[in-house]
């Protein structure tokens, strides 16, 4: 029963990130959600590609339509990464191992963020190629070398990652799985419907609108009533949402009893 441990030093970000990576990869739900997201994005890209009639439409944006739908899944996974610890009691083991709570959330965000980004970029690129390859004969598909196309594909994956981080932050703030998912779905989808009807000026700031109409658009959407953000402004806005929810989550995690 004796194992010699290296003495000196103390735990740092690297150790905490390793813990979070083992935790994330050892849950089946992680792989189910990521697989479903990528598969869904490809399926939708093919369905949209095959049924394309209008050669003048934003075909890149069409091919990336599945990314916007996958936002819900990655957001829920982000919520679960945090609330799963609270509902199971794992949080006590985690915080007993690493009492520096903001460091725990930072490591979670880094590990989950990298995994979500990889999944989002994979979904984006595969969906782009699948969606453009399945266009009907006679319709010329976009190429990555054309202006704005590569940017749309790359930012689509980034948006996917950022919505996942918003979910993680909401999970840290709210702690209870159903409530956090309700706020996420409400904030990303339901509120969007109301805002679309009531105040068009705010519509462009909603996460789903940013991903669907700013990040993944090559041609600016032509809507007289709604002003959508530019791709980079949209990315900045999503970063701001993620930073705000994670910041509030870290602040609360450090102050509340576990």
């Amino acid at each position, binding site marked *: *029963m004796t194992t010699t441990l290296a003495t000196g030093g103390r735990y740092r970000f690297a150790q905490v990130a390793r813990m979070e990576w083992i935790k994330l990869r050892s849950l089946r739900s992680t792989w189910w959600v990521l697989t479903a997201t990528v598969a869904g994005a490809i399926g939708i890209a093919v369905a949209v590609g095959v049924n394309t009639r209008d050669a003048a439409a934003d075909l890149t944006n069409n091919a990336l339509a599945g990314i916007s739908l996958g936002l819900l899944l990655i957001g829920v996974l982000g919520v679960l990464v945090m609330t799963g610890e609270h509902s199971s009691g794992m949080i006590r083991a985690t915080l007993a191992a690493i009492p520096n709570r903001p460091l725990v959330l930072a490591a979670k965000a880094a590990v989950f963020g990298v995994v979500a980004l990889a999944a989002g970029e994979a979904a984006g690129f595969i969906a782009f190629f699948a969606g453009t390859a399945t266009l009907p004969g006679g319709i010329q598909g976009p190429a990555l070398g054309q202006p704005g196309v590569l940017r749309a594909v790359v930012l689509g994956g980034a948006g996917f990652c950022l919505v996942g981080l918003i979910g993680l932050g909401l999970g840290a703030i709210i702690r209870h799985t159903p409530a956090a998912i309700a706020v996420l779905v409400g904030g990303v989808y339901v509120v969007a419907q109301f805002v679309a009807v009531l105040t068009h000026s705010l519509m462009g700031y909603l996460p789903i609108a940013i991903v669907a109409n700013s990040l993944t658009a090559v041609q600016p959407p032509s809507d007289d009533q709604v002003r959508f953000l530019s791709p980079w402004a949209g990315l900045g806005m999503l970063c701001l949402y993620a930073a705000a929810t994670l910041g509030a989550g870290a602040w609360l995690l450090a102050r509340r009893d576990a």
Partner: protein
Amino acid sequence: MIEVRELNKHYGSTVAVDRLSFDVRPGVVTGFLGPNGSGKSTTMRLILGLDRPDAGQARIGGRPYRELPWPLREVGALLEARAFHPGRSARAHLRALAASNGIPATRVEEVLGFVGLADAGGRRTGKFSLGMGQRLGIAAALLGDPGVLLLDEPVNGLDPEGIRWIRGLLRSLAAEGRTVLVSSHLIGELALTADQVIVIGRGRLLADTSVAELSARSASLEEAFFELTSGSTEYRGALGSDGRTT
């Protein structure tokens, strides 16, 4: 060595821990006794930094828990409720904790074997019985080979063989010079393993003495315990002065 000084904690209007002070010394098993809801688990969470005290402090080897450089190498804890995710295997759970404190993965196999979960390590913990869950909790507590152990109701859910195993384990850990604090509401069980005993009621210290001394006060340890806890207010003043072991 665990030092608890004037610890206070309330939840809403309920006082959970009330100006609690005691020391837990190395080399002996210290029992932590009290009726349900007396504040045992809260005190343990406060020592581990999981809950924040309203006043007072707890120190381990002279430092607050939050300042420990490698917490799991200094303190091993088994908490009352389950502290693992049901979807994760026992092995993955322990590997994650080991990684956080720079403990090699080989140690995970050692503790799994030691608690009798070598064959169940790959199974998801959601399928574990209460007893297996306790064994996993004990494996996690022993992971960093810590000098201080806090075990909250460790015999919960264990079969007679498991209970006997825990008794031997606690004694041998203390014999190796470790500091061992074990809570229980089963007085008879603690009488078999503990040398020292700390009794609390409604968050207050009622006695801090040896098991032998407490047993000698009444017909049995159990009698002495009931006398203490039934009249906690009257007994508090008298025991505060004569019961301290420091």
